[in-house]
């Protein structure tokens, strides 16, 4: 048997081509992560880190109810945002894939990205303008005489966080579902009806299972970043809309407590990872490819 030379082989070429990306990912992603992981095992000093390894930070994170409340609230909020986003994204993706004529599809996808033409911050501020005490909705309703006092449940709570996040993640949720729907061979739907099922049952038995790979992707794309979202709860969350990211920010930048902030981050990351893995595992039968 001849041993293939490594240099010049396909594997070597592949590695060579991958290396810029690999180096980039290591520098910008792995390195900070490792730093955070390291910090989380160090002893917090006043505005500085004492380099003695300890597990106290984790003990504190696990015992202090404030972290559990905030992480729990973040998870519930992220789950709600995900549910709202994906459930509204599905009909939109379905509409573009199945109802819009093929030559207009790219136009529709383009229209969906329009909200991204302005910065996220501006979009969040616009929601403040719409939902605020003297905002568009309250002014309009009072002007119409429907209400006499401005509604206060619109802004600075969980509702406004969910609404703002759902709006901003909509395109990310629509696209994977759209792609999954586009891949469905239309004759499969005719086959479903040919075999005696109504349109609705064909949707349930054929379209939905085949779209699930896109739905799973959408769920992860929305859920994972929203758990740790920081800007939105800060701007429209009020005190009842504070999330885990807010306490991380507090630890790092207000208290200068890097070790505890890191431990909270790692703990949150662990929980999100576990949930995501369970979710993907639960849906694994939808993930097997058609080829």
């Amino acid at each position, binding site marked *: 048997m001849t041993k293939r030379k490594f240099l010049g082989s396909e594997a070597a070429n592949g590695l060579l081509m991958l290396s810029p990306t690999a180096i980039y990912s290591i520098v910008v992603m792995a390195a900070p992560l490792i730093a955070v992981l390291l910090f989380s095992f160090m002893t917090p000093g006043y505005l500085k880190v004492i380099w003695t390894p300890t597990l106290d930070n984790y003990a504190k994170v696990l015992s202090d109810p404030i972290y559990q409340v905030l992480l729990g609230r973040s998870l519930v909020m992220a789950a709600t945002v995900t549910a709202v986003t994906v459930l509204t994204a599905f009909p939109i993706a379905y509409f573009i894939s199945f109802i819009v004529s093929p030559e207009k599809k790219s136009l529709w996808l383009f229209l969906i990205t329009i909200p991204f033409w302005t910065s996220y911050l501006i979009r969040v501020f616009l929601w403040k303008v719409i939902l605020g005490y003297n905002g568009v909705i309250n002014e309009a309703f009072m002007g119409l005489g429907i209400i006499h006092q401005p509604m206060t449940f619109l802004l600075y709570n969980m509702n406004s966080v969910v609404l703002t996040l759902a709006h901003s993640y909509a395109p990310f949720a629509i696209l994977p579902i759209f792609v999954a729907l586009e891949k469905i061979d239309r*004759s499969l739907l*005719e086959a*479903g009806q*040919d*075999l*005696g*099922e*109504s349109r609705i049952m064909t949707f349930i038995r054929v379209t939905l299972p085949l779209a699930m790979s896109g739905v799973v992707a959408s769920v992860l794309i929305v859920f994972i970043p929203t758990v740790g979202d920081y800007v939105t709860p800060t701007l429209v969350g009020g005190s009842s809309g504070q999330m885990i990211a807010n306490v991380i920010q507090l630890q790092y930048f207000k208290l200068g407590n890097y070790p505890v902030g890191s431990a909270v981050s790692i703990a949150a990351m662990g929980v999100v990872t576990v949930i995501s893995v369970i979710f993907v595992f639960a849906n694994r039968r939808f993930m*097997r490819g058609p080829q």
Partner: protein
Amino acid sequence: MTSSPAAAAPTPKAKRPLIELRDIEKYYGDYYALRKITTDIREGEFFSLLGPSGCGKTTLLRCIAGFEELSGGNLLIDGKDMEGVSANHRPTNMVFQSYAIFPHLTVEENVGFGLRREKATKEDKARRVAEALEMVGLKGYGKRAAHALSGGQRQRVALARALILKPKVLLLDEPLSALDKKMREQMQSELRKLQRQVGITFILVTHDQEEALIMSDRIAVMFDGVIAQLDSPERLYRRPVSRKVAEFIGIMNFLPATVTGTEGGQIQLEVAGLGAIAIDAEQCPGAVKTGEASVGFRPETMTVLFEGDPEPTRGKIAGGEVEEVVYFGDMSYYDVKLDGVEKPVQISMRNVVGRPVLGRGARIRIAWEAGALVLFC
């Protein structure tokens, strides 16, 4: 007719029209895809729709299945008007060209897909699925993922999935076109056998004339949204009603001719290269007109006479010159210039031991019979 014993006791199964098409029309926008198609498809027959690409075969099949709405006319299945009856309520099942096997289900789940709505026990359904798989030669494949099957296997799954529901009509849209030649030939005879075995009416769409000839009881040849001829394979081959049909089915040679008169069931002709002859009126499947016409014959109906062959006892002799020879192993195809005819005609000969393959430029004598000719006016 009614008094004859054969007609008095017709086999009801073979004669009853199962599908009645009455002036079926279909428009796609301005495009007139089906132009008043009227015909009956009989119970238990293997019926083929044959025609060139774009002639409307798939459209007609989809109209029967209920995937396309008719723009005009009536469609009856088993005496029942299908207007307003959606695909899932029609007694038809389809084998799609792409097979449309559900990729997220196993072979078993695919085959049993249509059984959900039936009131039967789980065991009963499982038994039927196993039976259906066995019928198409996929015994033991039930647990496989559907997307891991070969083309031929998918085809069988699609067949089993449709036949398990015992439809009155099975619709097949070019089911064999994606298979390689060998597999296709095998499936052709298997499909034919299967059809005889289950006795269900099959409607096959194909653009392959050979396939249609091999498999069908009757063939409808379609051009541009109309049925040009509906006949048995043999009649279609021997007595095509028009030059267009003749050219579509196999090879036919045409010679210019003049119709000089008709009398007593005979037609008098003057044919280039063959001379003056009389043929049966039956040999003109279309309408007869005196004047310019053409006469067609199949390559195998003329015989090249070799040195030392006995003189033919029937028929006549024509002279010609070999212009080109194509040797095919068992057959040789000669392009022959008949004396007095511009365009060469094709004559096929079985290669028999001891017979030379004639070379180009050879002078030959050809034996032919008037009975093999078809007249197109």
